[in-house]
């Protein structure tokens, strides 16, 4: 971390979060803890098939069961025409979204919702599900992106046509879109290269893995007012999605967010909210609560895309990359909308490239519809490109960080997908990693290796609103609308305290719903500390201006003669502290601000990892991990470190163990947290972090988003470490024990390093 004297009093300190005590005492109310008078419980009937036509649904026996109050099917959903909605980290066609909430004429994946029930309790609701008769005509299915692109593949969506570089195709297909970014002359670039590396990679479908399952409680009143309580990354997004899906005005929907038990992008799309709403209306306007089981979470909520990625790169002997080409095929799940566009932006983002071409394909398959997952599409892409970059450096006999520095982007360079970089910190971060003791520490012992990789994320600004009121005791109530998913109440309150010149403890933040604050985009895209921080900075400036006026009125002098510094108002030798002035306020001081900042500033990370491979079992152990990242300005360093550590942990799981396993009929086999194997405390070492503070000039305190970058490099860094440990280039995720053992067997068979 930088050690220069800080100009700040609050920013850069590590106070206890405002919601901390509630969360260590079990008092915090999460979505599943909501309880209303007269509340019913809802459950969802899900498809046992990967692909089938629904011939008929007979719910009469379920409705006849004592304690059952309502059953709904897709017929209860309003008809929706094609319309694209922006969810912040992804977009969605609302007709498809409606179809994903409840299958209309076909089920498109194992676990696809078919009907829902409201009953007196969960057990009766589950019994009722077993009484619903659904007749299916099972259709051929396809789970794999490459196979789904074949001309004879089963077609999922009859009306889907390929958007081929902007032109719509004329025949049924599973390829929703083909995009391309192109610059320079690839042929010329590869002709200039002294070494060329080309490899094809495959990555498995993985899940966000938040510990709290999806949930929603709805009350649809007789007057048409719909109330929703749920854990979501964005209450306003839920409101907008519900307005479209249920075809009612946003003004009739009030969404109150509860505490949220993790999201990572997966709690932006609605799943249960519209079902609970429809059940509430049909069950006589009683509140209905729905909570998913873990099996439902894994089978039917947003995993992120499995992918095939081909990367070809060439470099001159002096270490300059001369050409780079990539083709990315991302599985979107049952409906279009994989993060392939983001993958195309991430894949070569750290490098200056004169000759480059990137092709991306968004392909539907019979898997759950992909949702955003922390730097959506980024980990897949960096796994491929950063492995090839490592191999190029090896073939040139160059240090991998030196090779990256030789090609690293800086201010004024243009990314392959268009945008020009403003002030970024890739070079500083690479240098910080190179000079970290970890990079040069001796690593001895058999089958051990060290790998490095870099990663990029765009970050986002989005729209934020906030309101603050000065209390008579000098404290300030802060009302914000950004879901606090990992400590943002603290980082937002700290920025307001800094702006006002008052102690952190004097700012009392509250996160409220759609009825209590102006519009806020979702907590996603690593935007909250940046964007909502901007909003409270504006709020703070307005409050200071008003308080200065009040001080001037008190002294009976023109406002220009009152000075303000560090929360003290002064005039001609007299002074009033913020608190003293607050006590003299006759009319309250309140201020609001709404912002939509654009200069959010992307981030880069460089990770170093040491691994040991057990060549008998194929198990990979992480011995040491260091993550360096350009974080702009760390408002609350502990929570910034936490973002890096958490991203690394998810990346380690993605790299080594996590994957969806389906049987030959397309049924998910590992929908439990025993078989979908996420890292435990035993699987990880301490994760060292290096916070490189290259201030973002587009923010009053220099903030850049930090949450997503750290999940991008781990898979590649670990693959590169495995190569140095056992001499095998792993090109498939997860690099689980069976794949390591198989790769070692191939290496022995070939007698050479793969």
């Amino acid at each position: 971390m930088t050690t220069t004297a800080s100009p700040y009093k609050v920013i850069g300190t590590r106070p206890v979060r405002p919601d901390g005590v509630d969360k260590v005492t079990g008092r915090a109310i999460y979505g599943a803890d909501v309880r209303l008078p007269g509340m019913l419980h809802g459950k969802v009937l899900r498809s046992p098939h990967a692909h089938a036509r629904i011939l008929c649904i007979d719910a009469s026996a379920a409705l006849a069961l004592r304690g059952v109050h309502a059953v709904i099917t897709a017929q209860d959903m309003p008809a929706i025409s094609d319309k694209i909605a922006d969810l912040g980290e992804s977009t969605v066609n609302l007709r498809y979204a409606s179809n994903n909430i409840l299958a209309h004429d076909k089920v498109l994946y194992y676990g696809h919702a078919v009907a829902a029930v409201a009953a007196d309790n969960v057990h009766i609701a589950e019994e009722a599900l077993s009484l619903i008769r659904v007749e299916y005509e099972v259709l051929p299915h396809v789970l794999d992106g490459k196979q789904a692109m074949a001309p004879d593949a089963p077609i999922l969506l009859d009306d889907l046509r390929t958007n081929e570089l902007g032109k719509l195709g004329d025949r049924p297909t599973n390829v929703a879109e083909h995009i391309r970014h192109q610059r320079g002359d690839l042929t010329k670039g590869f002709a200039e290269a002294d070494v060329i590396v080309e490899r094809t990679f495959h990555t498995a479908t993985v899940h966000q893995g938040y510990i709290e399952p999806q949930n929603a409680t709805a009350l649809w009143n007789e007057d048409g007012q719909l109330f929703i309580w749920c854990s979501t990354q964005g209450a306003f997004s839920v409101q907008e999605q519900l307005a479209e899906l249920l075809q009612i005005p946003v003004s009739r929907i009030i969404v109150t967010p509860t505490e949220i038990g993790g999201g990572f992008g997966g709690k932006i799309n609605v799943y249960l909210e519209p079902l609970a709403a429809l059940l509430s209306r049909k069950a006589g306007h009683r509140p209905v609560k729905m909570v998913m089981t873990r099996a439902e979470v894994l089978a039917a909520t947003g995993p992120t895309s499995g992918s095939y990625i081909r990367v070809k790169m060439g470099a001159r002997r002096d270490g300059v990359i001369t050409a780079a080409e990539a083709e990315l095929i991302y599985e979107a799940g049952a409906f279009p909308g994989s993060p392939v566009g983001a993958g195309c932006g991430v894949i070569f983002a750290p490098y200056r490239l004169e000759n480059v071409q990137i092709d991306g394909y968004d392909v539907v398959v019979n898997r759950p519809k992909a949702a955003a997952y922390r730097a959506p599409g980024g980990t897949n892409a960096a796994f491929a490109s950063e492995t090839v970059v490592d191999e190029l450096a090896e073939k040139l006999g160059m240090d991998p960080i030196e090779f990256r520095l030789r090609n690293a982007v800086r201010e004024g360079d243009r990314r392959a997908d268009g945008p020009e970089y403003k002030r970024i910190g890739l070079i500083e971060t690479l240098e910080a990693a190179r000079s970290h003791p970890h990079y040069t520490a001796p690593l001895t012992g058999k089958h051990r290796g060290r790998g490095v990789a870099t990663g990029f994320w765009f970050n986002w600004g989005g729209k934020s609103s906030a309101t603050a009121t000065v209390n008579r005791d000098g404290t300030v109530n802060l009302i914000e609308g950004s879901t606090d998913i990992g400590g943002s109440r603290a980082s937002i309150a700290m920025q307001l305290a800094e702006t006002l010149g008052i102690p952190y403890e004097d700012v009392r933040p509250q996160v409220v719903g759609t009825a209590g604050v102006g519009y806020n985009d979702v907590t996603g895209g690593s935007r909250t500390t940046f964007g909502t921080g901007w909003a409270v900075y504006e709020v703070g400036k307005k409050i200071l201006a008003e308080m200065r006026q009040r001080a001037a009125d008190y002294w009976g002098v023109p406002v220009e003669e009152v000075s303000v510094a560090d929360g003290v108002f002064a005039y001609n030798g007299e002074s009033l502290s913020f608190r003293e002035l607050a006590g003299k306020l006759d009319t309250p001081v309140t201020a609001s601000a709404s912002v939509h900042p654009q200069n959010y500033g992307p981030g880069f990370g460089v990770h170093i990892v040491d691994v040991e491979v057990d060549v008998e079992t194929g198990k990979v152990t992480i011995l040491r991990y260091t993550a360096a990242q350009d974080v702009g300005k760390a408002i609350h360093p502990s929570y910034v470190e936490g973002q890096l550590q958490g991203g690394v942990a998810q990346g380690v799981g993605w790299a080594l163990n996590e994957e969806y396993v389906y049987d030959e009929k397309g049924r998910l086999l590992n929908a439990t947290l025993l078989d979908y194997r996420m890292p435990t405390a035993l699987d990880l070492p301490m994760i060292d972090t290096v916070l490189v503070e290259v201030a973002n000039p587009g923010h009053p305190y220099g903030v850049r988003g930090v949450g997503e970058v750290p999940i991008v490099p781990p898979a590649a860094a670990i693959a590169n470490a495995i190569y140095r440990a056992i001499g095998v280039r792993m090109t498939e995720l997860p690099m689980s024990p069976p794949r390591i053992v198989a790769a070692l067997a191939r290496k022995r068979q070939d007698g050479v390093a793969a």
Partner: protein
Amino acid sequence: MSSKVIVTTTINGEEFEFLCEPRQSLLEVLRDVLGFTGAKEGCNNGNCGACNVLLDGVLVNSCLVLGVEAEGRTIETIEGMAAGGRLHPLQQKFLEHAALQCGVCTPGFLLAAKALLDHNPDPTEAEVRHWLAGNLCRCTGYDKIIRAVLDAADAV
């Protein structure tokens, strides 16, 4: 519907009597019948530890215990961890170390860590990691949780 059983149990030092269906888990009873919602349901099959409570001093996943099994037993939940208006040292250290992000796994981790320190007041990092391997956290990468527990052990 099966008939209900009267169960008497002690929770956080206070006696409770409740009606329980034989099929209801202790987790369901705690949350839905008695209102102890600090125990969380993350998986309902013993893999995540979010529902951890202490049953006669032993760490259990309350989703794998039946409500009727609570008869005559002593249960400790997260709601009882801060005694006499003061946070337990583990709770305090979790706050100081920023050992939680979303916080939904936190009650389970705190009770698991308490069970560890109750029988091993001076654990090594390896022992803490081994003991807490039954609790999943998806946010923190465990680093700050482990540090908080080690620090709390020093403080106790």
